[in-house]
């Protein structure tokens, strides 16, 4: 398996504060990689740099053989096909559930394509399939502001699915969910793994055990450990900074 995402010596400073420092990482095609670490470890900042929200001050990000370091979010999402689910649901509130998915549907993002877009059966079936996967088909006419917190998280996962990205980045997808919802989310993520490469940050260790294969641990902006979940869980350093709280 070749590396889909290759990160070399990545770092960023915020006015002297080094949020992420010299991180190297390789993520293979089709892999599910879980990134764990205490609050402030730099997980979200790391995601921000990969998706173009934050410009790194050093290092490079190679995706699928292209250098995408410091490119615009729209380009990274549209041209290089990296989809992101944000921490806390980041959706279109006063639009219906159906429209949220429809707007995310890939390939119709230029002005011309939005004007000539025809909602034919194939597209409708695709949206329907996604809505069924995220268990919101019955609620497709609801405004997304009328959903529960967990359902909103799922809706955003559905939006990322609709983008058909090569790489899916999920930032704490289960934040604020009940144990039952968290488990269902884990099953959704596992189902996605077949077609996509996934990076997911998470605090909930049950969820991590449910989905993870390889795990990367960040601590104070640095890469602390990386490997199979069983190995990492036994790593004394990791236990000391992170796992001991559980």
């Amino acid at each position: 398996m070749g590396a889909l995402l290759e990160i070399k010596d990545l770092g960023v400073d915020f006015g002297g504060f080094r949020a992420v420092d010299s991180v190297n990482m390789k993520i293979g095609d089709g892999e599910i990689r879980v990134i764990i670490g205490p609050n402030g470890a730099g997980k979200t900042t790391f995601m921000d740099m990969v998706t173009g929200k934050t410009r790194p001050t050093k290092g490079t990000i190679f995706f699928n053989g292209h250098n995408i370091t410091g490119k615009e979010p729209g380009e990274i999402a549209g041209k290089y096909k990296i989809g992101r689910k944000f921490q806390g649901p980041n959706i279109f509130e006063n639009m219906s559930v159906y429209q949220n998915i429809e707007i995310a549907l890939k390939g119709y993002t230029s002005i011309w394509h939005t004007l000539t877009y025809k909602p034919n059966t194939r597209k409708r079936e695709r949206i329907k399939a996604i809505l069924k996967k995220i268990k919101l088909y019955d609620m497709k006419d609801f405004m997304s502001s009328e959903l529960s917190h967990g359902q909103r998280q799922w809706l955003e996962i559905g939006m990322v699915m609709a983008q058909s990205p090569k790489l899916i980045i999920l930032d704490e997808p289960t934040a604020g969910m009940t144990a039952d919802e968290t488990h269902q989310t884990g099953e959704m993520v596992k189902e996605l793994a077949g077609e996509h490469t996934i990076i997911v940050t998470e605090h909930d260790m049950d969820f991590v055990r449910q989905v993870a294969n390889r795990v990367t641990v960040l601590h104070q902006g640095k890469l602390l450990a990386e490997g199979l979940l069983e190995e990492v869980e036994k790593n004394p350093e990791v236990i000391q900074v992170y796992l001991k709280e559980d």
Partner: protein
Amino acid sequence: MTKLKKIPINRWIDLGVLLFLLVFPLFTQTFRVEMMGRFIAYVIFAISLDLLWGYTGLMSLGHAVLFGMGGYMIALCYSMQGGVPAFMTREGINAIPSFLVPLQTPAVAVIAGLLLPVVFAFILGNFLFRSKVSGVFFSIITLALAQIFKDFIINQQKFTNGFNGLQGVPRFPIDGIPLSKIHYYYIILLVAVLVYLFCLWLTKSRFGKVAVSIRENEARLGFLGYKPANFKIVIYMISGFIAGLAGILYTPMTNGITPEDVSVVASTAVLVWLAVGGRGNLTGAIVGTLCVNWAQSLLSESFADYWQLILGIILLAIVFFIPNGLVGKVIEKQHNFRINRKRVKITAFNRSMKGAEV
């Protein structure tokens, strides 16, 4: 039948208003027809702002500038029909300046009145949206613009007749005979229907949904692969085109245009119409504009001294108690009714599933 039921309630309101406007001239005096014709031109103007504010969330406080560009082009055209107009000779201009000569042809003036706001919106949009000016800063810049534009019109007295504005604009005469007020009323109504149908198509299209997404969460849209700035520029241009069109139609109906029609006051008046009717559904622009303007006329006729006070109280009450506007409230009611019915169904279904498990 099921298809008919799916039509949102506000489309029936639109149809009702259209039927009313179609028969209106048959039952009233000519000066009322003229008034209503003016209000329909305002409806077109309000729709143009609805695209920008209601759908895309860009609150322009200077939209009358674009309206005025259309209006002044057509007014300038007709004031130069009988040779050099008096306000130019007074300033020592004895021949029509070469850059104004093409404007003497009404068709050219109409095209200029449509393109000028588009070009203006394109340039301003590029500056503002590419540099990520948004929210309240967009409003403030457009507000300043309205003031500057009004001052510009007043100062360019030799071309615009300053404070007094350009008067005596005829209703698109053919062979020197202006259209009758009734005929012109129906022309404005026809154009309004076409604008409405175009905007309905546009807002129902994926493009329109992208516009709403910009309003709801512009940053998120970027992460879906869109370039929101491009969309905002195009929407501003379309809105400018329609506003210019409204100005072109309005001016001959009222006989003229003055700097007051392009001022901040005029710009904020449209915001009020939209707020009363409801934003982001086209119907609100129609209903709000007609209701507020009629209320204004009728109140000023009956209570000449304190009509503004009464109107102000009504407007405040509406904005305070129904922030979504009159039409917004109706749509919300219909939506809630449907959603609650759906909820009941889903709960019943879940309960029966649980029952099956036990």
